[in-house]
């Protein structure tokens, strides 16, 4: 888990979708073992930032390094392999396939050349880790939303990636299930995984050591950088003077 050097380095990263600039002038470093919350209004570029960090899309401009690899130097194939070994994803909509829970989790290592028997072994262990050992034989459609998200987390961390990216993991859950999921993410962080969570929930953000605020595609606040914690809503010009 303790890779030398940062997991993610963004330098002047920018992402354009046609005429829309979803992300601009973004510098960001995530080191192993961090727990980071990304907040910001809808459309501010949070998901875009996450997909760039997760190598699901390449920046239109700027540099992105993942565990030291410059994205520009990697082909799509190699990028996929990098994702398989380094990054786990959790989404708001779970994205679980129909079928047995254990197989859904085992898919987490499908693209890493691990034999099926071994995948299922690890899957059972991972389900145990997320507190769903008793649901191994169930089908995914028999689970509650909170349980589904825990299964999705088990799948994401099956290969022990050093980085876990979660896009509104509690967004589709009631507050109790949301708390259970957050507790789980905190445990993973405690065990050494770097976790980046996008959230709209102020309470969740407040309980996380590092907070990054986005507005109109720019980082307007990063608690690891800024000495003063500025309230959300400060405009960009103000932020520049703060830096």
């Amino acid at each position, binding site marked *: 888990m303790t890779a*030398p*050097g*940062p997991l993610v*380095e*963004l*330098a*002047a990263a920018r992402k354009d979708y046609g005429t829309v600039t979803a992300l601009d002038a973004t*510098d*960001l*470093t*995530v*080191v192993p*073992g*961090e727990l980071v919350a990304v907040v910001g209004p809808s459309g501010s570029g949070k998901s875009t930032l996450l*997909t760039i960090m*997760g190598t*699901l*899309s390449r920046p239109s401009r700027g*540099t992105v*390094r993942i*565990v*030291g*690899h410059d994205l520009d*130097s*990697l082909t*799509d*194939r*190699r*990028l*996929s*392999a*990098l*994702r*398989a*070994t*380094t*990054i786990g*994803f959790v*989404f708001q*909509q779970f*994205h679980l*396939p*129909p*079928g047995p829970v254990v197989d859904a989790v085992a*898919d*987490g290592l*499908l*693209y*890493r*050349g691990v*034999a*099926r028997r071994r995948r299922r072994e690890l899957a059972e262990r991972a389900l145990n880790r997320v507190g769903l050992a008793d649901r191994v034989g169930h089908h995914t459609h028999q689970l509650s939303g909170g349980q589904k998200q825990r299964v999705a987390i088990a*799948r994401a961390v099956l290969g022990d990636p050093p980085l876990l990216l979660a896009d509104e993991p509690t967004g589709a859950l009631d507050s109790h299930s949301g708390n259970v999921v957050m507790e789980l993410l905190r445990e993973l962080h405690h065990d050494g995984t770097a976790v980046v969570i996008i959230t709209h929930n102020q309470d969740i953000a407040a309980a996380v*050591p*590092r907070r990054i605020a986005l507005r109109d595609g720019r980082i307007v606040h990063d608690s*690891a*950088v800024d000495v003063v914690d500025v309230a959300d809503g400060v405009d960009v010009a103000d932020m520049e003077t703060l830096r």
Partner: protein
Amino acid sequence: MSRTRPARAFGPRPVRRPRSQPRPTRMKAADVLRVGGAGLRTRPTRVLLSALGIALGVAALIAVVGVSASGRENLDRRLDALGTNLLTAAPGKTATGAAAGLPPDAVAMVARIGPVEAVSAIGKTGAKVYRNDRIPPQESGGIGVYAARLDLPATVGTSLAHGTWLNPANEGYPAVVLGPVAAARLGVRAPGPDVQVWLGRRWFTVIGILAPAPLAAELDTAALVGWPEARRDLDFDGNPTTVYTRADNASIADVAAVLGATANPANPNEVEVSRPSDALAAREAADDALNGLLVGLGSVALLVGGVGVANTMVISVLERRAEIGLRRALGATRGHIGTQFLSEALLLSVLGGAGGILLGSAATVGYSTYRHWPAVVPPWAMAGGLVATLVVGVCAGLYPALRAAHLAPTEALAAA
């Protein structure tokens, strides 16, 4: 956290051991099949319907090939039983158009050709045959009355269905053997001492009924009487009208070449020599045109089935964008995704192909049983059906697979 720091630019980094570039792993064949199969299992109705298209196409092809192969096998077996070494010589028309005859000693002369094993003959008489003496003379039912030599059935390769053949004891008496069609037309079901037909203005006793003679179909509609009896009572001139010749298989062409001149030395060009087994095979081969048409139709059905599979797969790719995005997030390469959808298309069409082979074989067996043929489905046809299915599967799956593979992961995830 204490170790974080601003990263506006990449400053000097602590020296890291050089990292090798990450390499994707190849999916195991079992995993490819499982993932492809899982995609199909979740949509069973759609899968069955689009596999059915392929199945019908393959079934049509297999059935056409199978039925035609069964028919050919049946013909081969019949020809094996009948022998392909029978030649017939019949008088053609003279230059003036009148019916020609063969000289009375034609049989004896043909028998002198070296490789000839057996010779027999029939001679057409002018007589007519009726069910009884009250039928108007013009209603002769198309039955020809022939004088027949005693060795006719052995030479032609036919046998008696009922009763007995002519023999030296009765060939000079009013006894008749009927071809199967002639018997039916005359209403004779079985021969017997009291079964008589009105032939040449007198009563003839029916002593036998022939089995069908595939190599001499003219006998099926014939009434056959002894040679001496025909000469005596039916104004028969003694000229054979068809000479049947069995010759050594190896020399059959040589015999055919001299048969005309031997049977009728005076007018060799008037003799029509033919090999009935060839005619039989040719008649069967005439079905090939129909078979070609059916194969064409089957191919079109297969093609339409392929279009169905392609359609199913394209829809499947559209519906499963989120799944594709997720798989990319789990580390699937474009190749992995493409392979998954291609294997799905292949499974789908192989499923259809296997069903089609079963269906086509069943149809072949059913039809062959109905026709009393041996059922034959050539292994090459089954292999061909499977190969055609695979080709169709690849063609139908390629475009959807490429589409799935080149879907941007973010776009795929956003579609959910």
